[in-house]
């Protein structure tokens, strides 16, 4: 059994609660133990770095120090949380002065960070050889042949991390491998590592809406029945503001946007309801009821 300190991040308690429950279900199926990080705090998203660099660092340092105390490596399901934790971890490991400064701050919460923790995105944990073998073994017919656009988003691949080969930064393929293992049919999605607009949805609506339109049209052109995401912000933008795209551009997109863990859970035989399916604003009914799905009723 592999154990990790699980850092859900704020969105997984609210907008992305379905990402949380489906991650838990999949982890159980794959023998990955997720122990929630004790009293974790927000990673800072992009706003802290807009306001103060040290503020951004100190808040991630606290989460890293708590994981070290629990003696576990961290996994984060959100691209932004993952990027912030990973980057702060790297900065603390290479910069002794910064690390001293942060340890001085951490004392105020009886914590200390020695740099012993590694940070992974939750998808990385589900694409190990062992996990993939387990998925192939357990996968049923539930999403067999389903045409899925694998949408990585940005910060799961960028900024580039040492040891990751260039090809996996420009055009990563592990998401596709994962979907294939689960029986789905990942489409060739040219926008898979292009930005969803992130917080621009709030701060510069027209820019974000245009970026979303490209992503949605790209998925339609690629023949996808659903876009699978690995980030709560990508999911929220693509789903909740799909109507806004339709309004601004006069389009009629009705593309379901699910977390990759929800699709994976279906493949592994978990009931749709337990994966949080049904809480979408853009219904996923169309492909859930497709003829090749087994007779088992949705929601069991």
């Amino acid at each position: 059994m592999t154990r990790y300190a699980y850092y859900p991040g704020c969105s997984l308690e609210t907008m992305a609660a379905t990402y949380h429950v489906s991650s838990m279900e999949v982890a159980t199926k794959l023998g990955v133990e997720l122990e929630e990080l004790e009293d974790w705090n927000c990673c800072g998203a992009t706003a802290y770095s807009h306001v103060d660099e040290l503020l951004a660092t100190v808040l991630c340092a606290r989460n890293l120090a708590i994981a070290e105390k629990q003696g576990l490596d961290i996994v984060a399901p959100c691209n932004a949380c993952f990027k912030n934790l990973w980057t702060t971890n790297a900065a603390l490991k290479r910069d002794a002065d910064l690390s001293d400064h942060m340890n001085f701050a951490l004392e105020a919460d009886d914590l200390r960070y020695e740099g012993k923790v590694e940070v992974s995105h939750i998808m990385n944990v589900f694409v190990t050889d062992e996990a993939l073998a387990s998925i192939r073994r357990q996968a049923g017919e539930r999403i067999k042949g389903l045409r899925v656009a694998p949408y990585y988003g940005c910060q799961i691949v960028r900024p580039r991390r040492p040891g990751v080969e260039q090809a996996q930064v420009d055009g990563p393929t592990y998401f596709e491998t994962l979907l294939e293992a689960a029986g789905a049919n990942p489409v060739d999605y040219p926008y898979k590592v292009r930005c969803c607009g992130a917080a621009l949805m709030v701060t510069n609506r027209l820019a974000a809406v245009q970026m979303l339109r490209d992503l949605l049209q790209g998925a339609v052109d690629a023949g996808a029945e659903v876009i699978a995401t690995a980030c709560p912000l990508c999911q929220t933008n693509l789903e909740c503001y799909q109507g806004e795209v339709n309004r601004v551009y006069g389009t009629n997109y009705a593309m379901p946007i699910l977390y990759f863990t929800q699709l994976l859970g279906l493949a592994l035989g978990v009931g749709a309801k337990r994966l949080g399916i049904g809480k979408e604003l853009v219904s996923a009914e169309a492909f859930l009821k497709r003829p090749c799905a087994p007779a088992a009723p949705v929601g069991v």
Partner: protein
Amino acid sequence: MTAISIEPRISFREEVENLMHAEEGASLVRCVQCATCSAACPAVEFMDHTPRKLIALINAGMRDEVMTSNTYWTCASCYACSEKCPEGIRPADVMYALTRYSLWKGTFNRDWVAPEFSRRFTRTILRTGKSYEPGYAPAFIFEGGFPGMMREMRMAIRLVAKGRLPLIPSRIKRIKNLRAMVARVLPLDGIE
């Protein structure tokens, strides 16, 4: 009487680079103006200066043009530019540095949503330790006029009905300690 020689002030480019002390990446002097960053940017057409031009303005010491630009407030932090720069510059980190500098110097346009959003976000975290989406609404909800506001409200209601939007913000247990931690690296009144 011998004249005391006064060291020249550091250049504006050095000023900007000094804001990125914890970052890696090549100096802006290496910029060859190839515009790969601008080509990689998905938000470029909403910026008053392209990323390439912004770097040129910084290198030319054109402080006012840079400090009042909307370019860095239009950056979504997707890091496509940093990934592609053939000279190893990381424009995305330059964008972050300039948002901080323009907040500090107060040179941003008061009508923009982004600076107020970032401030609200930060204040929320310092109060509760966690992010809470409805708390940021005042920063942007009036942007789309009355119809825009109604659309936002309708969506919020649907999300609450789906159990995706809590009405009460959650907070971490040791918020007092977290605040004490932050106070050890910077004065809290500066951000609150």
